[in-house]
């Protein structure tokens, strides 16, 4: 696998990744701020009150966005974990580890906003419904991943164990969802949370989509930033990291670092073979 044949492979070198993230994050921050502000404006000043729920439905903009993001980030984390397990690409572990805190945060926020929406809508902060229960389990999986990653003495070992946990969890979450859904429906009749209520006004839908996009960009920006810091902390001796910290990383330096890490990678593979 040369870095020529697969273009994205170039960014498995932390130096290249760092430079790419450096270029992307300002745009991501700006886009996130813009989209979230637009979503808030449309959501609060254009969209009308909902017929049945009144004003409380406005919580849903943030609730849907964070819930979706939490799930998406878990799958992404498991994917990076799987990549790390198979190909031992260090950058994949850095990405997975950087996703975890933001994913846990999003999952927590979706539970929190869901409870505050549920209280006036169903008259209770919490029900043992499939979605809520599996989201809670998802939060624990994120926390377990973080705890396991940090618990091993050696970072590589911790990363691989945590990656394996992430992959097992990704297989388990649907099973948990279906088992709890089945259990709940048997006991309580049909779920109180119906898949779709009355049809949404177009402005509500616009606000929701904007908020989802805004949260998505926010998460991307935070995760890339955290991955940058994580990469710096893991390779403090490398030349590129010192240049990056000083705020001057030249193209040649990047290329040198990339070549160095490719050499390191191939020599590792030879060592294994």
């Amino acid at each position: 696998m040369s870095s020529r044949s697969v273009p994205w492979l170039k960014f498995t070198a932390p130096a290249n990744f760092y430079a790419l993230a450096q270029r992307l994050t300002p745009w991501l921050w700006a886009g996130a701020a813009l989209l979230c502000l637009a979503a808030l404006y449309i959501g609060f000043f254009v969209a009308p009150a909902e017929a049945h729920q009144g004003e409380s439905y406005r919580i849903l903009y943030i609730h849907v966005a964070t819930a979706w993001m939490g799930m998406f980030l878990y799958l992404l984390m498991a994917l990076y974990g799987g990549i790390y397990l198979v190909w031992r690409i260090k950058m994949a572990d850095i990405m997975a580890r950087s996703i975890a805190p933001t994913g846990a945060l999003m999952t927590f926020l979706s539970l929190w906003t869901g409870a505050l929406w549920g209280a006036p809508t169903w008259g209770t902060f919490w029900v043992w419904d499939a979605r809520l229960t599996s989201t809670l389990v998802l939060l624990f999986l994120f926390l377990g991943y973080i705890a396991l990653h940090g618990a091993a003495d050696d970072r590589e070992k911790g990363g691989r164990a945590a990656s394996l946990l992430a992959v097992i969890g990704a297989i388990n979450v649907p099973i948990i969802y279906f088992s709890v859904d089945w259990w709940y429906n048997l006991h309580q009749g049909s779920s109180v949370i119906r898949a779709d209520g009355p049809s949404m006004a177009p402005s509500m839908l616009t606000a929701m989509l904007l908020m989802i996009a805004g949260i998505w960009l926010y998460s991307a920006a935070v995760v890339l930033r955290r991955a940058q810091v994580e990469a710096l902390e893991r390779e403090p001796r490398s030349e590129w990291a010192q240049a990056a910290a000083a705020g001057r990383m030249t193209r040649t330096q990047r290329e040198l670092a990339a070549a160095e890490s490719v050499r390191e990678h191939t020599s590792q593979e030879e060592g294994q073979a």
Partner: protein
Amino acid sequence: MRRDLSLIVTRRQDVLTVVAFFILVITLFPLALGPDPQKLRTLAPAGVWVAAALASLISLDRLFADDWRDGSLEQLLLAPEPLTVVALAKVAAHWLALGLPLVVLSPALGYALGLEGAELGVLAVSLLLGTPVLSLLGAVGAALTLGVRAGGALMALLILPLYVPVLVLGAGAVTEAMYSSAFYAHLSLLGALLAAALPLLPLAIAGALRIALD
């Protein structure tokens, strides 16, 4: 596997400790809830199943720890059999020694909590199908937390969320048997979980062991 089994049998104390733990947890329920038979009966499936899950968790904590410390786990890595088979054998031995007694005891404990007749049979069958899955999942956790600080508490955090489906289906089967007779669906889903776990989870256990031994 025979070696593991004989090892566990010679350490009869471990078996006794886990069985005693199982019985004690179940005893806590009537003490906390009060002796009202009707209330106890409602709680019985949950009580027995939660106790079984906790007993499985604490007994699995040290499944690989001793072998890991004295280096015999590394020898297993070099053995002619694939690590997956070795892992499966170890879990099977562990379940036969520590899981099966819980299954055998469960009708008596269920009776003490007010279950009767066919419900006791369903309880035993649900545990028979469910506890091997718990053992396999717990073994993954035990392998992942090998050589880790505060391994026991961390293992609970990792593994208890994954126990949820088994617990839901197992306790659900018994509850169904109490109010209607539609418990076959629960039991067959539990069987499906076991059928999926038996080939897949040993792979995960072997993977986790390799990480710990690297």
